[in-house]
Each structure stands twice: as structure tokens, then as C-alpha cells.
């Protein structure tokens, strides 16, 4: 927070210039490289004032290539060679212990080529020194700052605007920031610049006369709901020296902290609920498949988690195919192709399991649990032998970003995608069960197997289809999980118990039950996790245990779940 007053004055007097904020718009012509090089050449001159002017002219260009050059200049790696400005960051030695300097271009950073197309490496003694003095080093650092604020690239401008407001506050940037806060074309940058401006005002000690403005900044920051101001204000309030600013200042700051805190907790809660929704979505996709096989056939499929693993590994295989056999530009399409592939692969494996094992175990649900557990061990070990223990699936670039729906409420695309996928699955199942012939037969078999059989429904075939369909859904869950979790052979084990809990809580009577309980368990887990009771933070494990206890208590009142099967089915 302490500032060298001298520097401050130097900047105010010497650096006051009206920055061409318009230059921030890329529409304005950039000075050509020759003009830049000419300005750079001035740095080698004897005229101190001209050198200074050159530095700040360079900053005005907003050319991002200058960032590296100015840094090199500051560290003393810029030299004069044959009346040419060159850069050399590291010297070499040849066999005769001559120190040679491989030269690079000041702007492009590429090696300077001689006549023989090799990098020029003159002897170190041939280089003219252009070492900046103490002041010039400071100016170079400043220029670098302005370079970012004036960059035509919005990202760079944004980060520059943000950085200048962070401690130690860049007080020299105040004027430029003010201009940006008013004139920049990007809304976000204007906001950040204004925030930084206020932060600088808040964080910098000022003479008594201007104190009022300083504390008013706290109020303005609170209005802006600035999360960045929170740690700064808190630290100021903790500081014992704060008393000298008087009671009014303290009150203002405390009010601001309270306001920002409430915004912060709102943002956090939205975040937790959103995380819960995406966790719940995965649970729902898993549990829907389980609920179908369990509700329809009374079969407990402990290999359901491994079918999910099959889906995830299929996604991996498709990714590898795209990486190895298709041009790079196609990479993003792999995730589209993987969607049906994951479903089909898991459905096929599920179909095989049905034929080989499950078919023989209808009406023996407890034993199907054991047999399918055996299948799951086989699948895990096979995957481990074929693929190894840890493989990487990269999300496609179009799922890597995020969207800020409200101030500070940032929703990542991959989690949004999972929620959308879940909605798609629910719609698909609903249509299949309620709108198609297959669905009609499925429901008939579920309600009364013998009657459906005698009316000409091939219940065995319906069973196969249903089981394969439920398995395919597990595959989709695995496909979605590659976005947010690691892919390992035993990944299914982490989810199987929870998915069963979802089915048990939801009941098998209605799909709605699974959706309610899936979302409920997912959101409850994530929302309870960060809660605090006195000194005790709940944390992930206790949240799980607590949710579990709730489920156990819930089953007391609803032994067959939220939506139990009704009528004659009820006591089978």
C-alpha cells in the first residue's frame, strides 16, 4: 500500500497523457513494424527524455509482441549490434571458451538469421550495451502494464484491468482505467475496470481531505457486489491500525462487508445447488436403467456400475480412434459419435449378460445380485487387463467453457450438458414406455407377466430388450461421467450403491419417483456438504452419512419408496 511519492508525482506529471482508448478497438491501424523498430531504436539513444517518451509511445501501441520485448529490456537482455536493436537472453560458449550471443529479433522473438541461414552468434564483446537505469526499469514495467490495458485483444485487456486493481494497487493506471471504464466496447471490461478503480481508491492511503471519497468507494463496491473487495475489506477491518480512520469509516466498511457477504453466500448456494443438480442427473441416468430392470424383472443388476464403465471406456476408444486416424480438426466430433456408441456398446454387453446369466434368475432376485456381482468382477478385471488402470478422456473444446448467467454465478458447460443429457434420457424413456408398442408390452409384462404371456407377448424377448435398454442408459451415464470424473476400471463401484439408494427411495412404481429421489439425493448431498454448525463443517463424508440416515428414516414411513407399485403388484 505504501507508495513512493516521488514515483507517484513523476507519473502524474510525466505520464499524464490522454491514452487513445480507441486504440483498444482493433479498427485503428497498428503502427507498422518499421515504425515500432524505429521507436525501439530510440531506446539506444543518449537522450534520456527521448528514451522515456519512446517507452511510453511503445506502450500506446498496445502491441502484445512488445510485452516480451519490454520484459527483456527491463532485465537488460537488449543490445545494440551493427546499429540494430537485438535481443539475447542467454549466451553460449564454444570450444575455445569464447562467449557467443545467439541473437533474436526484438519483436518476433525469432532467431536472427545471417547470410548462411544460421542464427547470428557474434562474440559478446561486439554487442553494445543498452542497460536501462533504475527509473527506466520502472517505466518499462509500467509500460508493460499499459500495453495490456491498451491491447486490442479483449481477454488481455480484461486481465490487465483486473490485475491493476489487485494489491499492490497500480495507482498509475488510474486514469487509463477511468477511460476504459467509460469507453471500452466490452461491458465486462468496463465493469472490471470500474471495480479495479474503486479497489485502488479503497486500498490506497490518501491525505485526510480525500478520506471521504475513499470510504465511499467501499459503499460503491458493495453496490457492485464486488467479491474481489471482500478479502481486502476484511483484512482492513482486522488491521489494528484501522482505528485511526474513525468510527464512520469502520461502519461503512462493515456495512459493505455484510452486503458483499450476503451476495457471496447467494452465489455459493446457487453453485452448490447446481453441483447437486448435475450429480443428481448422473444418478438419475444410472438409476433409471436400474429402476427399469428392477421394476420390470425384479432383477438386481450389480454389474450396472460396470456397464457405466463400459460406456466410459467406449468414449475413450472413440476418442483414441479420432486422435489416431482422423485429422485434428475432427477431434471435437468424437464426443458426438461417442454418444450413440456408448449407448450401443453398453446395451450389447447388457444383452449378453441377460442371455448368459440374468435370464436364468428371474424370480430369484437375491441370487441375481450375487451372479451379477460376479459378472461385475469379470468386467472390471477385463477392462484392467485391456486398458490399464488410468486412462484420460479429454472433453471436447466446446464443452470446456462456462457461462455467467448472473454476476459471479458461473455455470460450466460440461455440467449443463450433463443436465441436458439427463433430460433427454428422461424424455426418451417416457416416450418409449408410454408411446410405443414395445413400451406397451413392457408395461404389460411388468404388471402381469403370465397374463401378458398368454395374450401373445413374447415376455422373454421383452426382458432382453428391456435389460439391454437399461444397460444402454448406464452406458450413457458413463459417457457423461467422463466429463467430470476419472475413468478407471472400478469407477462403477462408486456409484452403484448410491444409484440403488435412489431406486429404493424413489420406488419402482413410477419413473417420476426416480427423478425426484435422484435430484433430491444429489442436491441434498451437495447442499449439506458445506454447511457449518459452530466449529463443525459437515464435509463430504458426513453429508453422505447424513443423507443415508435420512434415507433409512424415510424408508420407515415408505418401505417401498416414494411411488410404490400399487394394487396386486404391491406385495410380490
Amino acid at each position, binding site marked *: 500500500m505504501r507508495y513512493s511519492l516521488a514515483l507517484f508525482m513523476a507519473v502524474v506529471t510525466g505520464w499524464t497523457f490522454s491514452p487513445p482508448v480507441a486504440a483498444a478497438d482493433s479498427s485503428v491501424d497498428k503502427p507498422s513494424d518499421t515504425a515500432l523498430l524505429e521507436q525501439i531504436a530510440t531506446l539506444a539513444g543518449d537522450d534520456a527524455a527521448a528514451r522515456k517518451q519512446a517507452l511510453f509511445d511503445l506502450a500506446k501501441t498496445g502491441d502484445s509482441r512488445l510485452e516480451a520485448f519490454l520484459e527483456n529490456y527491463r532485465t537488460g537482455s537488449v543490445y545494440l549490434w551493427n546499429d540494430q536493436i537485438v535481443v539475447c537472453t542467454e549466451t553460449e560458449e564454444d570450444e575455445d571458451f569464447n562467449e557467443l550471443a545467439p541473437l533474436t529479433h526484438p519483436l518476433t522473438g525469432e532467431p536472427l538469421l545471417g547470410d548462411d541461414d544460421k542464427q547470428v552468434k557474434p562474440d559478446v564483446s561486439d554487442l553494445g550495451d543498452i542497460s536501462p537505469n533504475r527509473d527506466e526499469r520502472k517505466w518499462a514495467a509500467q509500460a508493460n502494464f499499459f500495453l495490456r490495458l491498451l491491447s486490442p485483444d479483449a481477454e488481455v485487456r480484461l486481465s490487465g484491468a483486473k490485475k491493476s486493481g489487485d494489491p499492490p494497487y497500480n495507482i498509475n493506471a488510474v486514469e487509463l482505467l477511468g477511460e476504459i471504464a467509460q469507453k471500452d466496447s466490452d461491458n465486462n471490461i468496463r465493469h472490471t475496470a470500474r471495480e479495479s478503480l474503486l479497489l485502488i481508491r479503497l486500498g490506497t492511503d490518501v491525505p485526510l481531505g480525500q478520506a471521504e471519497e475513499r470510504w465511499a468507494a467501499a459503499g460503491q463496491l458493495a453496490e457492485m457486489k464486488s467479491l474481489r473487495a471482500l478479502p481486502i475489506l476484511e483484512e482492513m477491518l482486522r488491521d489494528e491500525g484501522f482505528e485511526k480512520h474513525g468510527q464512520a469509516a469502520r461502519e461503512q466498511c462493515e456495512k459493505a462487508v455484510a452486503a458483499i457477504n450476503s451476495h457471496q453466500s447467494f452465489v455459493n448456494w446457487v453453485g452448490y445447488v447446481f453441483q447437486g443438480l448435475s450429480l443428481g442427473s448422473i444418478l438419475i441416468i444410472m438409476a433409471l436403467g436400474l429402476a427399469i430392470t*428392477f421394476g420390470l424383472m*425384479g432383477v*438386481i443388476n*450389480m454389474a450396472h456400475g460396470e456397464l457405466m464403465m463400459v460406456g466410459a471406456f467406449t468414449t475413450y476408444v472413440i476418442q483414441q480412434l479420432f486422435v489416431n486416424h482422423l485429422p485434428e480438426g475432427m477431434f471435437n466430433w468424437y464426443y458426438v459419435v461417442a454418444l450413440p456408441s456408448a449407448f450401443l456398446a453398453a446395451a450389447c454387453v447388457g444383452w449378453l449378460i441377460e442371455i*448368459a*446369466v440374468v435370464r*436364468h*434368475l428371474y424370480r430369484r*432376485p*437375491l*441370487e*441375481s*445380485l*450375487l*451372479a451379477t*456381482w*460376479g*459378472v*461385475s*468382477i*469379470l468386467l*472390471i*478385471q477385463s477392462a484392467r*487387463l485391456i486398458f490399464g488402470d488410468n486412462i484420460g478422456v479429454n472433453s471436447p473444446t466446446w464443452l470446456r467453457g462456462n457461462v455467467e448467467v448472473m454476476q459471479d454465478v458461473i455455470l460450466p458447460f460440461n455440467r449443463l450438458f450433463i443436465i441436458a443429457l439427463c433430460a433427454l434420457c428422461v424424455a426418451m424413456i417416457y416416450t418409449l414406455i408410454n408411446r410405443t408398442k414395445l413400451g406397451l408390452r413392457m408395461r404389460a409384462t411388468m404388471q402381469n407377466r403370465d397374463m401378458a404371456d398368454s395374450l401373445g407377448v413374447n415376455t422373454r424377448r421383452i426382458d432382453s430388450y428391456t435389460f439391454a435398454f437399461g444397460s444402454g442408459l448406464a452406458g450413457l451415464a458413463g459417457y457423461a461421467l467422463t466429463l467430470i470424473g476419472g475413468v478407471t476400471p472400478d469407477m462403477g*463401484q462408486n456409484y*452403484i*450403491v448410491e444409484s*440403488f*439408494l435412489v*431406486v*429404493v427411495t424413489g420406488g419402482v412404481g413410477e419413473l417420476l419417483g426416480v427423478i425426484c429421489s435422484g435430484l433430491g439425493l444429489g442436491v441434498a448431498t451437495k447442499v449439506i456438504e458445506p454447511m457449518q454448525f459452530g466449529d463443525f463443517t459437515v464435509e463430504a*463424508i458426513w453429508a*453422505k*452419512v447424513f443423507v*443415508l*440416515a435420512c*434415507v*433409512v428414516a424415510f*424408508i*420407515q*414411513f415408505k*418401505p*417401498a419408496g416414494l411411488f410404490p407399485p400399487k394394487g396386486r403388484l404391491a*406385495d410380490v
Partner: protein
Amino acid sequence: MFRDKPNHELCVWALFLFGLVGIPALYFSGTISIDTVNMLGRYLAFAIAAIGLDLIWGYCGVLSLCQALFFALGGYAMGMYLAHHGGPEGIIDKDGWKLPACLFVVYPYDVGEAPGDAMVPWFWKPFFSLPLTVLLGVALPGVVAAVIGYFGFRSRVRGVYFAILTQAITVAGWLVFCMNNMKLCGTNGLTRFNTIAGFELSSHSVKFGLYLITLICLIGVFCLCRFLVSTRLGRVLVAVRDDETNLRFFGYKPYMFKMFVFALAAALGGLGGMLYTPQMGIVTPEYMTAKWSILFVIWVAVGGRGTLSGAVLGAIGVNLVYNFLTTRWPEAWPFVQGLLFVSVVLLFPKGIAGLLNLIRFNRLAKRTAEA
């Protein structure tokens, strides 16, 4: 007196006899090492827990997936006793209790606590004395099971629902025991055991003694359960399994019986765990994972459920195969295990016990044919 017994029970008695006479003879003649005896002792401890599971699953028809939890609870009880009396390191806390070495190493200090502030937690203290430990090691799982059973059975949570519920409870237990600030040594588990009742755990004679004690306990448990299922109680249990609704209409309260058997099974699980820990030398939360809870069920299923002898044969048999395979082809074991589960359920629903009875049936049939 063995005339009227089924084959599998004769087999188990033969096994017990071999354990009592054959194994000591082999050991003292130097044919098998103390490590083999120790290993067998551990498998016998598994068998005790498996008998418990067979009571509740085989006779009562309730698939419980938390036998592993009860086994681990018993194991932790004994582990705490052993940790109290083991390990050279550790400090004396302010109340004069010696902090067990394994806890001292991973003690979760609060912010502001210096290493000297470590205290022996209150729940460690009862496990200092052996009789109390043995009592708690059996009673704790029993009480926990009674509570789970009371809430579960009274509201008629059945079949698959109960299985999943117990599985979830086991997972919850595992999560809690893995937490280091529970002061149960987290995922490290309890270790650094030294002595039991003043005897060195590493000495051969103590290992052999533990094997004998485990075997005698197993025989006792087997006889007790045999007796129990031959009484009227046993017949009620089978009635619960076969038609619970009907039984209720006769005026019985099935949930009382289920609760009792569930608690008894848990107590046996705890006993098994208590005998297992000193022979294994460590107890970790690993025994509470989903994998172990299903392993117990598999042993009973392979042996043949509802026979008691099947549980003994299954637990010992599967583990011997496991031991044989993992020393030779470690990668193959999961495949064998998986295939074993599938094939036993599909092809031999009655397990080893069923197969043994088949032989007797054939011999009888042969005799009848000759006559």
C-alpha cells in the same frame, strides 16, 4: 450317531477333527509351517462370521450385506485392545493413559494443539481390559444390528430393499472409519500389535494357541447354531423365510425373530473379527468395503445356504482356492472369482453342501437298485 446326519455335516465334523488332530500333528512333525497354521486360523475366523450370515440369510431369508461391517467392528474392538498393549512408541497423555503407537503416528491434532496435547479418546478406554473388549466386541455389533433390525424389520423393509439398505450402511461405516479425525487411525487402520494378555503375538506357540482357540470357538458356534435351528425357534425362522405374511396372520411377530437372529448373526460376525485381528496383525476399514460384505455372502452361497455346514465349507474352501491362486496367478483370481459366483448361482444353487448330498443320494440309489 452319524447315521442320520447329512453328508455335508459329516464332512464338517471330519474337518473339525482334522483341525483338532491332523493340523497339530502336521505342524509338530514339521510338515507345515506356523504361517500355514496361522492362515488356517484366519479362515476359521471367517467361517465363524459366515455361520452368522447363514443363520440370517439361509434360515431367515434376509440377505444382509453388513456382515462385513460387524466383522470389522469386532476386529476394531480387538484391534483397540491390542493397540493399547502394543508398540514401543507413543506418549503418556495428561490423564496418565498411554497413547497407542498407531494412533500417536496419525493423531489428528486440532489447530493450536501441540504434539503433547494428544489425548486417548474416551471410546478407546474401555478396550484396555481384555474381558471388557471380548464382551464389547460381541455386544457392540449385536446392539448395532438390533437397532438396524428394529427399524428395518418393523417397517417391513424386505428382500432386496433390506439388502441395499444394509449395503449402504456398510458403505457409510467404511466412510466414517476412513476419516482420520475419528481417531481410529483412518485408512492406516490399527496396527503395531505386540502382546495379547501378556503373550508375545509373534511367538509360534501363541499363534498356534490362537488357531486352537479359533477352532474351538468355531466348533462351539457351530454346535450352538445347530442346536438353535433344531428348536422351535429354528422352525419359526424357516417359516419367516418361506411365508412371512402367513406367519404374521398366525399371530407371530416376525420382526422380533428377525431382529434376534440378525443381532445374533452380528455378534458372531464380531466374534469372527475379534479372532481374526490378532492373527492378521492389522485391522483396516478395508474390511467394511462393499467387496467384503459380498464376499461373505459368496462364501455362504458357494458352501450352500441354509445348512450351516455349507458356510464353514464355503468360507474355508473359497479362501484356500484364493490363497492357492493368488500365489501363482494373481491376475487370474478375479476371473476365477467372478466365474465362481456366476456358476455357483446358475449351476449349483445349493452349493458344495448340495453337491455332497448328491453323492450320498447316488450311493443310496445304487444300494436300492442292487437290492
